[in-house]
């Protein structure tokens, strides 16, 4: 029995190590590349798995000093923060209404909103680029602020409905008996209890806005207004000239913090999926 347990444990580690290697390798390779000097990197015949010359920070200096990467990061952060706020403003009330106030209509509405989440940007970008142009928003970050809630609000609402349903009705009903209006009762009792769910929504909304590629390249062609997702692959590659070390630095510097944030909230996300996903 003991040997069997040991075998299972070893097998699990082998499987996990293989998956981790496959999943992380492109980033590990990028992280290894970003400290290489040009001589080292671009000499055919060098063993690619070694630093043939001493590692250097020059590529990071190039990325932050001589490219618009810093601007892209700031744009992404600004868009992310505004879209998170808009998403919360739209989806918290809607999710509460679906969970508590709409009776059997709630289920249908949740499903409708979920289906809207399935309509892909690659189908909507053509008419939306016309809308953005008509509103005079093209080539500004505001075009993305306008459309990103279409990606984030349906999913956030769906996730929050699941969270609100886990909170007993008695809690806000007691506050209403105590004399608060329903809105007052919700703000004082339900929102604090739903804080884990709301934080999860914040993380995932933020990540969804940084993940978008098609809207960012379709609406914006001015370097100073670009996001990380669109700016790095389109602006940091000039014709045939790839500054590979700096490009990899950009990818790794974005990938690692986002994955850390997700990892922190993964258990809540899994719980949210189990609640929202199973119940529909």
């Amino acid at each position, binding site marked *: 029995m003991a040997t069997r347990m040991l075998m299972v444990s070893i097998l699990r580690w082998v*499987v996990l190590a293989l998956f981790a290697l496959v999943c992380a390798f492109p980033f590990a390779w990028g992280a290894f590349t970003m400290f290489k000097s040009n001589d080292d990197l671009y000499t055919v015949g060098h063993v690619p798995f070694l630093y043939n010359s001493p590692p250097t920070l020059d590529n990071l200096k190039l990325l932050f000093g001589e490219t618009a990467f810093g601007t892209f990061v700031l744009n992404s952060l600004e868009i992310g923060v505004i879209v998170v706020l808009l998403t919360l403003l739209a989806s918290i009330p809607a999710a509460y209404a679906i969970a508590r106030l709409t009776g059997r209509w709630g289920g249908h509405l949740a499903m409708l909103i979920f289906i809207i989440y399935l309509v892909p940007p*690659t189908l*909507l970008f053509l008419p939306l680029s016309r809308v953005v142009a008509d509103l005079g928003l093209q080539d500004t970050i505001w075009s993305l602020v306008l459309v990103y809630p279409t990606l984030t609000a349906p999913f956030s609402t769906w996730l929050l409905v699941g969270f609100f349903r886990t909170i007993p009705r008695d809690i806000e009903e007691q506050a209403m008996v105590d004399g608060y209006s329903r809105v007052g009762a919700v703000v004082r009792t339900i929102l604090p209890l739903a804080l884990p769910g709301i934080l999860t929504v914040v993380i995932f909304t933020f990540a969804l806005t940084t993940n978008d590629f098609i809207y960012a390249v379709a609406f914006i062609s001015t370097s100073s207004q670009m996001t990380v997702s669109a700016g790095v692959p389109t602006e940091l590659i000039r014709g045939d000239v790839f500054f590979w070390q700096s490009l990899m630095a950009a990818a790794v510097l974005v990938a690692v913090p986002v994955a850390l944030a997700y990892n922190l909230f993964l258990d809540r996300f899994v719980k949210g999926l189990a609640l929202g996903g*199973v119940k529909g």
Partner: protein
Amino acid sequence: MIGPPPSRGTQIVDESVHVHHLLDRDRVLGPVLLAPLLIYLAALVVVPLVTVFVYAFSDATTGSETFSFVGLETFKRTIADPVFQGAIRNTIVFTLISQVIVIVLATVLGFVMSADFKGKWLVRFLILLPWTTPVALSALAWLWMLDSLFSPFNWILGQLHVVPIGTPVAWLGETNLAVGSVVALQAWRTLPLAAVILMAGLTSIPPELDEQAQIDGAGFWRRLFDITFPLLAPIMMVAILFGIVATFTDMAVVYILTHGGPGDATQVLASWSFYTGIQGGSLAQGAAIGVFMFPVLLGVCILMLRRASGVEVT
């Protein structure tokens, strides 16, 4: 459904109190809370969705504000184009192959990840990377990893004498290798979410079921196939549908990794729609290409609805 609260001080004729009373009615408050989201989604998802179909039957271009209807003309031109025919075939094939791979691997990964072990935090972080990183940036990392001159794989293959040392293997320049690369990247980036969804499914299976079956003498495989898999089926469906939508409608992978090439060998509906509609300036044709994604999306939605109504019954 809760009735209106007992009227407090109806003699007060203050407008704001009146409004508060109105908002205390669930039938009023519900729609008021829902309105901002529903109006926004109607304006920026539903109306544009209809507009795509309108464009597809017109001669709209990015350059002009007006357009006229041309019936099926745009569709005829689109369908006759061999690049489009390749794109629709590629979209289906890439999605099918990558998602079959994902389902098999995600099931294994979901199982090993849902157990408790030391260092779980680090392993989870590494495994989440392909899903959490913006797709454009991870595609860039793959582009470098598959570089024809400096790919580490080329070096390894050279050392193993699979290919002569110093010969570039054009991972993205030969049709079969480029197709394989796109499929691999799609499977790689959709795997973690599928595994996470399956983990959610595994945690929602009551452990007593498994324990009872074990007491009754059912072996590991018997329990796996007769208890775990059937209970996992509904949420596995969710994972599959997410994966299908993500792969079927993606343009970033093809756009960054291969630009649709070599030739147009890896072009998909989404990328071809983008090249035609935005870079080529033909809104009408871009839309006509895009709407061919619609039947599959509709199918996915119907499956979702059916699954949801099935759950409601039980």
